[in-house]
């Protein structure tokens, strides 16, 4: 439709011809939009930091069973396959899970707690390997300091039991394959493969462990039952779901739900505050843009009447304020984005370090920018309705002459 093309072209030419006036509208929009983007960026950045802080510490995703239970291999295997579960490994009896460690470089014997570990253990994520078989161990930082042990070093491990009236002790040589970060635990822990832990329990129960040459009862087992397990959810949002499911199965558990709930609650409250401010801002801006478009149409009555006189249809002339409103929306958004980016950098580089905070204090995803553009354009189009009505009502013969 040539009339449509012409109207688009004429609206654009008029808009750029009046660049000072158009510029004022663009800045007015940017001055409302930019602070809202900065506000939202702060909310999003702060909440994201809080969430990632929670997420990074696996303790916040851990679900601990209360008391003892009876969990079969099968049950553990089944639970492992759930999509919300990041990692699950069985635990043996706590009393049976200690071992005495001694290294050549330190003179005392350290009584160490053993924990089973496997590939994918969130506690040991940063390390490149996990213990395999019976003779590998990862020491906690605290244990390695007490034993003055280094990576690659061999240490002596021993277990004691009361068997057939006699006190027995067996020894093993373990290789320290890695040392865990201090943040993992402040206790003396030896992370071992589940096989070694089971062997230890068997020994202490008076059973034989033929693979290690330890003597004892050779009675066949029934299906093994574990008293507990170590479980981590994939994200803090999955924690609640898993807790509910376990409780449905009659298993009482404990998790860091309080902290998670706090962060979610802060997120929600900040969102509500933000949206209230945003709505007030948007409505205010829509009215002010609408009023100025209406006044513009009034001011340009003669020019719009000339267009009607030349033969432009009324329905096309109505598009004039609409096109100009959309131009204001687009340019205003661009301007606001630029202002936002400047402030984002200022906040993250200069303010955040001063407050000892994360460098992503103010942060927006690219989808947020596109949402802002969408909402701005919708507001601009709605505001243009006022101007459009005014334009439709123009009687060319009245508009042509300045009365």
């Amino acid at each position, binding site marked *: 439709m040539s009339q449509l093309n012409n109207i688009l072209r004429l609206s654009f030419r008029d808009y750029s011809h009046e660049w000072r006036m158009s510029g004022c509208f663009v800045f007015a929009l940017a001055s409302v939009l930019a602070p809202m983007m900065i506000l939202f960026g702060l909310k999003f950045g702060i909440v994201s930091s809080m969430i990632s802080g929670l997420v990074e510490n696996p303790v916040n995703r851990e679900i601990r069973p209360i008391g003892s239970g009876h969990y079969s291999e099968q049950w553990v295997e089944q639970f492992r396959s759930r999509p919300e579960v990041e990692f699950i490994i069985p635990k043996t009896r706590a009393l049976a899970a200690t071992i005495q460690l001694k290294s050549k470089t330190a003179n005392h014997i350290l009584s160490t707690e053993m924990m089973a570990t496997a590939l994918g253990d969130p506690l040991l994520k940063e390390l490149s390997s996990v213990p395999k078989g019976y003779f590998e161990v990862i020491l906690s930082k605290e244990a390695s300091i007490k034993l003055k042990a280094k990576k690659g070093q061999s240490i002596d491990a021993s277990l004691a039991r009361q068997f057939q009236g006699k006190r027995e002790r067996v020894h093993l040589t373990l290789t320290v394959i890695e040392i865990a970060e201090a943040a993992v635990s402040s206790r003396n822990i030896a992370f071992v493969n589940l096989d070694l832990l089971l062997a230890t329990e068997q020994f202490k129960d008076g059973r034989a462990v033929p693979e290690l040459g330890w003597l004892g009862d050779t009675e066949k087992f029934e299906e093994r039952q574990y008293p507990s397990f170590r479980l981590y959810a994939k994200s803090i949002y999955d924690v609640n779901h898993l807790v509910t499911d376990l409780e449905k199965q009659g298993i009482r558990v404990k998790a860091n739900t309080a902290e998670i709930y706090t962060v979610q609650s802060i997120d929600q409250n900040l969102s509500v505050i933000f949206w209230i401010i945003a709505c007030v801002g948007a409505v205010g801006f829509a009215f002010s843009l609408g009023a100025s478009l209406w006044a513009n149409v009034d001011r340009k009555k003669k020019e719009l009447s000339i267009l009607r006189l030349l033969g432009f249809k009324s329905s096309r002339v109505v598009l004039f304020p609409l096109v100009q409103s959309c131009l204001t929306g687009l340019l205003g958004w661009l301007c606001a984005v630029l202002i936002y980016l400047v402030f984002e950098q200022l906040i993250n580089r200069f303010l955040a370090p001063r407050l000892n905070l994360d460098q992503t204090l103010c942060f927006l995803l690219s989808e947020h920018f596109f949402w802002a553009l969408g909402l701005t354009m919708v507001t601009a189009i709605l505001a243009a309705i006022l101007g459009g009505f005014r334009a439709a009502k123009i009687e060319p013969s009245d508009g*042509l002459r300045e009365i």
Partner: protein
Amino acid sequence: MSIIYSLKNVVKERMIENVGFRLLVPNLEISKGENIALIGHSGCGKSTLLDMLALILHPDQAKQFSLGTNDGETNNIEQLWQKKKHDQLSEIRRLNIGYVMQSGGLLPYLTVRENIELPRRLLKLADDDSINSISKVLGIQRQLDKLPGLLSAGERQRVAFARALSHRPSILLADEPTAALDPITARKIMAVVMELIKGLKITLITSSHDWAHVYKMDLRTLHQEASVLENGRVYQSLFRD
């Protein structure tokens, strides 16, 4: 001689501050190629009549109001207004009519050339040399790429005429086109325009305040008869030959 406009008992009424104004055209027939001047003082309804002839103002009553166009059609204008066929009226206007206002008829954000081109663009007419030749005749060739704000009043009116004629309409309406200009410029411009329209066989209907000049140019004139009706509450303006 084919008839272009045919008006019978056409009435337009307006209320301005409790006084009624009534424009009445009892009988008017305009043939193709005629040049007509509306004579009367300011505020007597000349502009109102021109607006009705330009199809931008609807009559309140009309026994007959028809417009014959180049394609041989006779359009029933009062019926189109009654049936609110505004788009059709727009189309007739676009194709057949050129209008010159007293002043300020140009779009300030388009160059002179773009202003003159606009009616042709609306009709999707091809770019030919007509704009250049019409600009030459009207003496504005050197202003073609300037914005109207940089031209003098006289130059702007010449551009207004160029735009009104650029799409070769069959009718040229002019509402006191030279009223804002000095008499010498005014007469120069009108002389050029009269030559142009004679060559293009365009029907001219103009209103003018310079009566002496109009009589000299030997145009058919329509005079206004004023009367006061209804005990001073209605002022009537009647146009006849």
